[in-house]
């Protein structure tokens, strides 16, 4: 039933994500590497939550668990009450690298999710909608190596959104873009989120990005990641970067992260 779905009829497809007492470690043969330590987060349907923490602290692992690519060593994750055991196109992960399939054109990359589920024929129009949404109509037949970093990341986001995900997991999606492109992309992501209403979980190490986009910012410690703080950002969009409340929040978050406020 989810497959026959068309976003034009029914906006606000989203889900409630429950992360309950999740710990995770990687087995490195001679030793184990703990990456997550007793993490519990409840994400409301349609909420935009940012996970903030130092690079390599284990936030990305949490996204992989939420995507169903891996199972946690301890604890559980569920979507709308159902345990997450497998990857599902309802929960899509966008990586730091666009990871486009280099042998497919932009159009076919965006269509790959529909193709994989065998619904491409019925939903062909969605591909064109998404091309328009991410403003890449002119590049439909280009190959990934012909795109700039920002364009590639837009394709990656379109490839995720074409499946009408209920949950979009974003793993530092703008981390490798230049700062100007990053600003535009943040604005675009916010618009897409408002238009389509998915639940969003964004991993970032950029305090400003977290404050600009998220309803709630969760701060993680260094590895193994524990939750050290949680901040609600009760500011309506569009937010201004130099808003005094946001600057206050920024200062306190940086302190939480162990960076002195005069940085």
């Amino acid at each position, binding site marked *: 039933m989810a497959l026959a779905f068309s976003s034009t009829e029914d906006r606000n497809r989203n889900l409630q994500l429950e992360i309950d007492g999740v710990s995770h470690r990687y087995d490195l043969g001679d030793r184990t590497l703990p990456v997550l330590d007793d993490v519990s987060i409840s994400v409301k349907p349609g909420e935009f939550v940012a996970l903030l923490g130092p690079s390599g602290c284990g936030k990305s692992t949490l996204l992989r668990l939420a995507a169903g690519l891996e199972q946690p060593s301890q604890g559980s994750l569920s979507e709308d009450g159902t345990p997450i055991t497998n*990857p599902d196109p309802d929960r899509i*992960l966008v990586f730091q690298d666009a990871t486009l399939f280099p042998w497919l054109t932009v159009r076919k990359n965006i269509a790959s999710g529909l193709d994989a589920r065998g619904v491409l024929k019925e939903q062909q129009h969605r591909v064109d909608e998404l091309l328009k949404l991410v403003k890449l109509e002119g590049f439909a037949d280009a*190959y990934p190596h012909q795109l700039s970093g920002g364009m590639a990341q837009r394709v990656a986001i379109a490839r995720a959104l074409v499946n009408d995900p209920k949950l979009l997991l974003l793993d530092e999606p703008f981390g490798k873009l230049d700062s100007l492109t990053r600003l535009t992309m943040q604005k675009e992501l916010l618009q897409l989120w408002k238009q389509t209403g998915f639940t969003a979980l964004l991993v970032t190490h950029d305090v400003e990005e977290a404050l600009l986009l998220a309803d709630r910012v969760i701060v993680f410690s260094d590895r193994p990641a524990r939750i050290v703080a949680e901040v609600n950002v009760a500011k309506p969009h569009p937010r201004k970067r130099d808003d005094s409340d946001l600057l206050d929040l920024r200062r306190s978050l940086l302190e939480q992260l162990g960076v002195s406020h005069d940085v």
Partner: protein
Amino acid sequence: MTDVLRNDFGTVQQAAFRPWKPWRNGLLAAASWGTAAAVTYLLPDVINWNATGLFATIVAGIALLLLALAFVVPLSDKRTKTLQHYGPWLVAIGVWFAVWELLTAKLGWLPKPFFSPPQGLLNVYITDWERLLVCVGYTARLWSLGFFSGIAVGFVAGVALGWSKSFAYWGMPVLKLIGPVPASAWIPCTFFIFPSTFQASIFLVALASGIPVAILTAAGVGQVNRAYYDVARTLGASTSYLIFKVAVPASLPNVFVGLFMALYYSFAVLVVAEMLGAKFGLGWYLQFNTAYSAYANVYAALIIMALICAGLVRLLFVLRDRLLNWQKGIL
């Protein structure tokens, strides 16, 4: 001065304004081919070769053609680009014919039967063309049956080896063991296993072409960036999608390296394969004539084989460029 420069960059007016000059390499080529023709025709042969007069005529004809082209080419700059590109080669081939002619037929420094002048090869083509044609046909049948079955099995095996850990566990050591075994070492086994020698020959060609394809396909599938699988899995891909729409296209550049190797190996093994009781075929022709010290025939057949192989390599390049056009700019 500036006017001249500007005209050099203009396209339409170029022909009209630039002083007309013949194609230099064309003239040189005409000269070298003309020399080859003159050497062939005017100097006496040490021993009699039947086709000397004919060869001289053909070379002289080509020299005249090149001379004509040297004056036509400047008028049609664009359309003859390929021809112009190979200009230096045309000159070199003329020189090569002249030198070859001198060393073999005219001076006798490279004696019969070990060496043959170009007219010796021409003579083979004239007198033995029917048999050569039949041989080409037989070889084409053996080669295509062997090569295509070999690469098909090799590709499937390679995907399985690269994808499945248990396939790799059992298959890789076996592949590494049989890979370096020379084709002729298989002959006793194949005689026993296959009901006919023709099937045994097909097997040898298939083996020679299958092994490089299998090894490189397996390596290619094994090297696919894991992130592609993660992406595809979150997009809802099934295992067959992961294999056929992610692993296979991602490893295609490797597969083509294997195909090129397969092509060369399959040609190299033809001679051995046609040792097994074949009655016709280029490989058989090579052996038969080597046994009779008819080296002119051997060279004549080798040239045919080399040309066919080069043609097939060219075809494979075209196919690769078509299938891997997404790589343009990466390579």
